[in-house]
């Protein structure tokens, strides 16, 4: 019994998930509660419990299928799955690791490019201002996708309700947040 390698079939990806999130995928007993509670599951091509199962098999083809699937990008990160998992696992964190791996390997499907663009626009905004800001986020996202007019009719109402402040806010420790981004990038390159 070693606490490290659960089975001699544990894949590198499963090992990485264990190291980064503490989730041992072998512990999943496929009850399906994650899928049952997931608000996005009905649009997913591989349901959350199947994502966990595909990580248990240690089969490379299963992993490749996972890393190029759309489900990863449908995940809204609401953490309902993690909240409800009877084994105390964290499928949402597993999703994060898988999304990172997919991005790194360049296997993000074309249909998910907008989602990726949104993620990147969001992070860039945080890097610049140390927090979320609507105008910069919207501008970056629209430039990245080229879709300039989507949801544009929402803008007047949001303006009226004060949800779109004209001058972006910034936080005091902006420089420190930027440093976090820099360090993270360095770590990733290593």
């Amino acid at each position, binding site marked *: *019994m070693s606490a490290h390698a659960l089975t001699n079939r544990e894949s590198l990806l499963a090992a990485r998930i264990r190291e980064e999130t503490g989730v041992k995928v*072998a512990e999943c007993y496929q009850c399906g509660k994650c899928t049952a509670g997931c608000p996005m599951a009905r649009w997913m091509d591989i349901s959350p419990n*199947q994502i966990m199962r595909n990580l248990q098999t240690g089969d490379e083809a299963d992993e490749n299928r996972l890393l190029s699937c759309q489900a990863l990008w449908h995940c809204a990160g609401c953490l309902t799955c993690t909240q409800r998992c009877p084994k105390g696992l964290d499928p949402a964190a597993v999703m994060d690791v898988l999304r990172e791996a997919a991005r790194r390997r360049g296997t993000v499907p074309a249909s998910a490019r907008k989602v990726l663009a949104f993620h990147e626009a969001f992070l860039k905004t945080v890097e610049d201002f140390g927090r979320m800001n609507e105008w910069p986020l919207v501008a970056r996202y629209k430039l990245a996708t080229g879709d300039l007019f989507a949801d544009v009719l929402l803008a007047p109402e949001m303006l009226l309700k004060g949800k779109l402040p004209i001058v972006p806010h910034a936080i005091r420790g902006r420089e420190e947040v930027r440093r976090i981004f820099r360090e993270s990038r360095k770590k990733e390159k290593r």
Partner: protein
Amino acid sequence: MRRFPKYVNAGRALMARIGVFICHCGENIGRTVDCPAAAAEAAKLPGVVLSLDYKYMCSDPGQQMINKAIAEKLLTGAVVAACSPRMHERTFRSAAAQAGLNPYLLEMANVREHCSWVHSERAAATAKANDLIRVMVEKVRRNKALFPIRVPVEPTALVVGGGIAGIQAALDIAAGGGKVVLVERSPSIGGHMARLSETFPTLDCSQCILTPRMVEAASHPDIRLMTYSEVEAVEGFVGSFEVTVRRKARYVDPEKCTGCGDCFNKCPLKKIPSEFDAGLGSRRAIYVPFPQAVPNKPVIDAANCTMLTKGKCGLCAKVCARGAIDYKDQDRLEKVKAGAVVLAAGFELWDHSAYGEYGGGRLKDVIDGFAFERLASASGPTGGEIRRPSDGSEPKTVVFIQCCGSRDDKKGKGYCSKICCMYTAKHAMLYRHKVHDGRAVVFYMDVRAAGKGYEEFVRRAIEADGAEYVRGRVSRVYRRRDGKLVVKGADTLVGRPMTVEADLVVLADAMVPRRGAEKLAQLFGVGCDTDGFYSEAHPKLRPVETAAAGVFLAGACQAPKDIPDSVAQASAAAAKALGLFAKPELEREPVIARVNKNLCVHCRACINACPYGAAKDFEIKDRAGKLLRVVAEVNEGLCQGCGTCAAVCRSNSVDLDGFSDEQVCAQIAALE
């Protein structure tokens, strides 16, 4: 049993004073049947002197109504129109007995299950209730007082089967003050449990926990072991069975033998596959099945010994310093008296040769669970090392296939064998403990691990010991030219077929009753279900009793069971046997058949028809002992009151107490 006042017996049809008590059963009957109207109607019936209705007749006040009526109205009979007699006949009859009325003069008319529950139209249901009550009044007018039959009890239990269930039952009965005769077919007690390596869910060594029990059973002054013996015939009935046991020829005198082992060390026939080792090891023609056998005395296998088949050899007799070998030994029949019987005939594994797709039993490296137990056992043929039977190499990938023959109506058995999920998890665990770089792949349909510590055990196999569980049934196993076994399965959770190249495949074969179990059941009048497992008297409320009075069940002969369940049931059976022994005499229901010896023409129809062997020849002799006539007679102790004899009797000379022709005909006539 209390004495009843004389007047209750004097009243027959003409002088009857009958009370009718109609129960509303809350709303159950009252909603559909107009109970007050039915009571008024019943009051008009001939012989009825009192008719009442009440909300809950089974309640204390309800019973007191009956009590009071019997005392005040001097009732000679009573009809309670309420639920099924299976529910409350006992309640009302004991209420009647308390008031001094013979309990068999009270009958129940079932106006709930047979009327209110199955009808909705009130007027019609009430009319039917009236009919049911009238019919029962006609019967009660003709009822006779009956008295329980008393039979003496022999405080000895016969336990058939020397596995863990039989051993446990024997020990418990002996501990409770009973005597036990333990009959075992093979040369040693211990059964299948002696063959196991380790036991779930605690992984204690099977032999270490079993052998003390075996020794205790053998040395207990009140337990008599009859190994290498089989039940041949059964006579008698609860309290006094007389069982004929065939004591098979051992060819070794156990009195003289010291168990030194010279004989089986010298026996030249070395290649006989050992039954104990599931054929993976070998034994001699004179042998003890395993080193801890109880009794530790060898037997000669007459089918293989050349001295017995061809008259050549005789080496064992030459080396035996005690002169214990006797080639002329013969089977002996011995009679045993017993008051109760515990059947613990056990199980065996389903023969997987019916599964051609898994190699049909021809592939050497496709083995069953017992073979794996022997491989994993320190006392086994490999000394506890997992080795392939074909070439002795260490298997690096082992595939375990669950539900082999179970949950398969077409080729195997429809039922779940219950224990395979657990022993497969154990096998996978043991394998991973012994072969650290090996893969254990388990194909399962569902994991059914209901038991204390069981689910945790299976999760441990998966999470801590790295067994790879794949949900799906294997479709095919075949041997590739290089010796690898190719297992074609599916991972239904991923939704794709998968192939595993294995070195060893272990099939979790279904549990089935022992060969010959059905014959044993017939000897004791015990029923079998469609799969051959012994039928209990009631699946929930009488799980250790059988339809045959005084015959109890223990262990896997009743249904697939693991060790804890078998032991628990064995103790329950022991409690039942000890309950019988607690009184010197038994009281039995007096509803039995009687033969009118004046009318009987001795056609023997009843004797042939009786399922309990209760109908027998009876010789009528004069005072000088001269035989006058032979007629049929019913043994009170054996008769279960089924009425088959009364139905087949051509001369109308058999009647059933409590259900006489007169009564039944009057009931039918009352419906016209």
